[in-house]
């Protein structure tokens, strides 16, 4: 009874809000979406998981967004002014910004939110390490006073990979950055319906009536007008792949974020469904640089020369679209430097064995963490395992669930005390645009991401890249980082797989990239 009356109430409200002569008796329009994973944490600053980021983009807004070429465009910002020396950035907020609790968005909310973000995000840390001061000039203006010029400032504030620089009310933004905010108040196009939230089963959002989309521009990756055509969006968690497929086939659900690529041929023969273009996903292998065998750079290099990227991608990408020739970067900094020489797909395993022995491999156990509940990671791990075995590596394939993998990978202990040697994981392609977004290519030791690669050369080059203002010079530095990465191997890029969604064919207006619920309408 509750939900129905509630819906009728909200319908009445929406009818009242619009002009009376347009008020037609129509049921509240609901978009039913099947997310790729269940939403557990509601705070995109405290958590970096894919569903949390998606949730973040619905409920919150960012000062800048990226257009379809990944160039930053003002989103909540009206625009910015940079002083002649490049040290003072003045950003003005556009008119008509409100939080879901009805309060207007003020500059001090922005300051508090960005401060909190900078405590968690790598790019944010870089920005704030160059910032003397961030202050609210007046209610609608914030100013960055930098120590040195940083042209990437809008790119940082508009980054689309986690953690995204979301703006929340100051009272919430003052929360400890390592603690998740539980009250969800943003200024995004959707408000979160807390009373309907059932973790692991259902997440519900309502169109935020007071949201003013940008007046002009196109819907980009995260920029442009966020016009909402549904009264309500529901995420229904369906853990079973074939049930999710059946739900789309029968029309009970509208849109599925992450079907298996192998399902796509079914769609091509069915006029009631369509494929939704989405972003790619990069599969990679992360190595633990702290303990044998992969604390030995020579062993890492031999692994790189043997890994069979094609077979792994065949298993991961299946009948879909994929490629196995990627380097570190996929965006404007993309380079082929050293890829062919590094990934040779060797099969002369007898030589490999003697080389491994010469490099000092003594048959140390190589603990491979495998989340068997994530099909891609499982497939990649199984294919790679067969290569590792042929190489003579002593693989300990540990079948775990992904939750345990994310717990275990944090362990800096040696293998015999619960530590690990390697694991596979995938991340959206927008994390791999350039040295600013690709935190996996960083090598800042124990401060860095799991695996803790330590290479002063890579760090030094990355610093140079951040300081460079010329695109050609940046490209040169990026290719140097890549060449260095094939020596130090912070991670092993395997390939990129296109991860399209699946939807009923009466839905239109999809934009590329992560699932965006604005612009989409039912015809």
């Amino acid at each position: 009874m509750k939900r129905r009356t509630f819906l009728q109430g909200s319908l009445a409200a929406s009818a009242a809000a619009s002009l009376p002569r347009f008020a037609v008796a129509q049921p509240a329009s609901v978009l039913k979406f099947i997310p790729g994973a269940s939403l557990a944490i509601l705070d995109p600053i405290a958590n970096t998981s894919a569903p949390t980021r998606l949730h973040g983009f619905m409920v919150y807004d960012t000062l800048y967004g990226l257009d379809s070429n990944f160039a930053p465009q003002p989103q909540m910002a009206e625009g910015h002014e940079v002083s002649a020396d490049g040290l003072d950035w003045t950003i003005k907020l556009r008119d008509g910004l409100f939080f879901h609790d009805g309060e207007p968005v003020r500059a001090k909310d922005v300051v508090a939110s960005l401060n909190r973000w900078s405590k968690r995000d790598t790019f944010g840390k870089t920005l704030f390490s160059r910032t003397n001061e961030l202050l609210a000039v007046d209610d609608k203006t914030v100013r960055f006073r930098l120590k040195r010029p940083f042209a990437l400032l809008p790119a940082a504030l508009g980054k689309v990979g986690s953690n995204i620089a979301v703006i929340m009310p100051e009272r919430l933004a003052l929360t400890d950055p390592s603690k998740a905010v539980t009250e969800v108040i943003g200024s995004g196009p959707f408000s979160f319906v807390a009373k309907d939230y059932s973790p692991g089963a259902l997440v519900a959002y309502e169109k935020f009536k007071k949201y003013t989309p940008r007046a002009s521009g196109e819907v980009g990756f995260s920029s442009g007008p966020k016009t909402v055509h549904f009264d309500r969006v529901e995420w229904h968690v369906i853990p079973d792949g074939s049930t999710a497929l059946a739900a789309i086939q029968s029309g009970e659900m509208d849109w599925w974020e992450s079907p298996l690529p192998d399902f796509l041929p079914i769609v091509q023969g069915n006029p009631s469904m369509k494929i939704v273009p989405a972003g790619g996903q990069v599969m990679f292998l992360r190595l633990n640089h702290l303990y044998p065998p992969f604390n030995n750079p020579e062993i890492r290099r031999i692994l790189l020369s043997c890994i069979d990227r094609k077979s792994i991608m065949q298993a991961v990408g299946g009948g879909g679209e994929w490629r196995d020739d990627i380097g570190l970067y996929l965006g404007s900094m993309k380079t082929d430097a050293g890829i062919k020489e590094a990934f040779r797909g060797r099969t002369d395993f007898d030589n490999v064995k003697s080389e491994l022995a010469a490099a000092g491999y003594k048959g140390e156990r190589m603990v491979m963490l495998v989340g068997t509940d994530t099909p891609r990671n499982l497939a990649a791990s199984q294919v790679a395992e067969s290569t590792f075995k042929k190489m003579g590596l002593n693989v300990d394939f540990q079948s775990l669930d992904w939750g345990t993998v994310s717990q275990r990978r944090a362990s800096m202990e040696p293998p015999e005390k619960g530590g690990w040697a390697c694991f596979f994981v995938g991340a959206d392609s927008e994390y791999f645009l350039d040295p600013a977004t690709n935190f996996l290519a960083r090598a800042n030791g124990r401060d860095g991401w799991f695996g803790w690669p330590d290479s002063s050369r890579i760090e030094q080059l990355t610093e140079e890249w951040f300081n460079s203002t010329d695109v050609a010079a940046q490209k040169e530095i990026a290719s140097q980082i890549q060449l260095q990465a094939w020596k130090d191997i912070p991670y092993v890029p395997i390939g990129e797989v296109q991860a399209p969604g699946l939807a009923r064919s009466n839905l239109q207006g999809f934009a590329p990239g992560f699932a965006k619920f604005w612009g989409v309408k039912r015809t």
Partner: protein
Amino acid sequence: MMFYIGKRCLSTIPVMLIVAVLIFGLLYITPGDPALMIAGDQATPAVVERIRQQLGLDLPIYVRFGHWLWDVLRGDFGKSVLSGAPVSNLIAQRIQPTVSLMLATLVISVSVAVPLGVLSAWKRGSLIDRAVMILCVGGFSLPVFVTGYLLAYTFGLQLSWLPVQGYARIENGVLPWLRGIILPSLALSLVYISLIARITRATMLETMSRDYIRTARAKGVADRSLLFGHALKNAAVPIVTVVGTGVALLIGGSVVAESVFALPGLGRLTIDAIMGRDYPVIQAVVLIFSASYVFVNLIVDLLYTVFDPRISY
């Protein structure tokens, strides 16, 4: 009689206490640190230690068990490690689909299985009897999820009679609720039907061979009234017993059926919690499932007196 009922009710207390000890002990001996889980990706050891203290994980096991038991007795199951929501809220959200599923399964099973079993016993040795018995053994032999997929594919996708997945809450309309619950209950019923039909047949055969039935038959009481009036009434006790003990089977099956049909029930909550090492949720849900088993079997025991007046205490 009242004394017996009271005694029987009291006897559930030590059983539940043992269940509580078992659940708590099982989670205690398993590896995996909930504090690490909560702390997340980039936590420092100091943060983890602080969380551990907040959760009371640094206290001795018996103290923690005491605290937990005291909280549970007051109806406080703590907070979910994964989502931070109070466990009692999670359970309240999830209980309706599971209860619906179980009740529907029970209704379908009993209403199909008892006539089948009676029929089988009545036509003992006939082709019908054989067919029913083979069917019953077959019902045990198919995993619930295979039955579930087949049903969803046939009646959901191909014939479009019923939804292939999902749950419609009963307060939003009885018909949608019923439509949503039919396929999962059918999938789940198969095992239960087998179980009940077999026991019905066996006990019917046993009672029918008893003297008083023979006497009734000799007196010329019609076969049908004999079957349903005398024999079935006497067969009720073992049938009810099987229904009671079968609840455990039903709970296990509902975990699978809820996954196949995407029902947001307690079974899926349990699986998610187990996979995510969400200890407070695991403890609470397993405790609730066990309590319902104990409760159902308590009712069954008390029902004996209703069905079989010869049993008096």
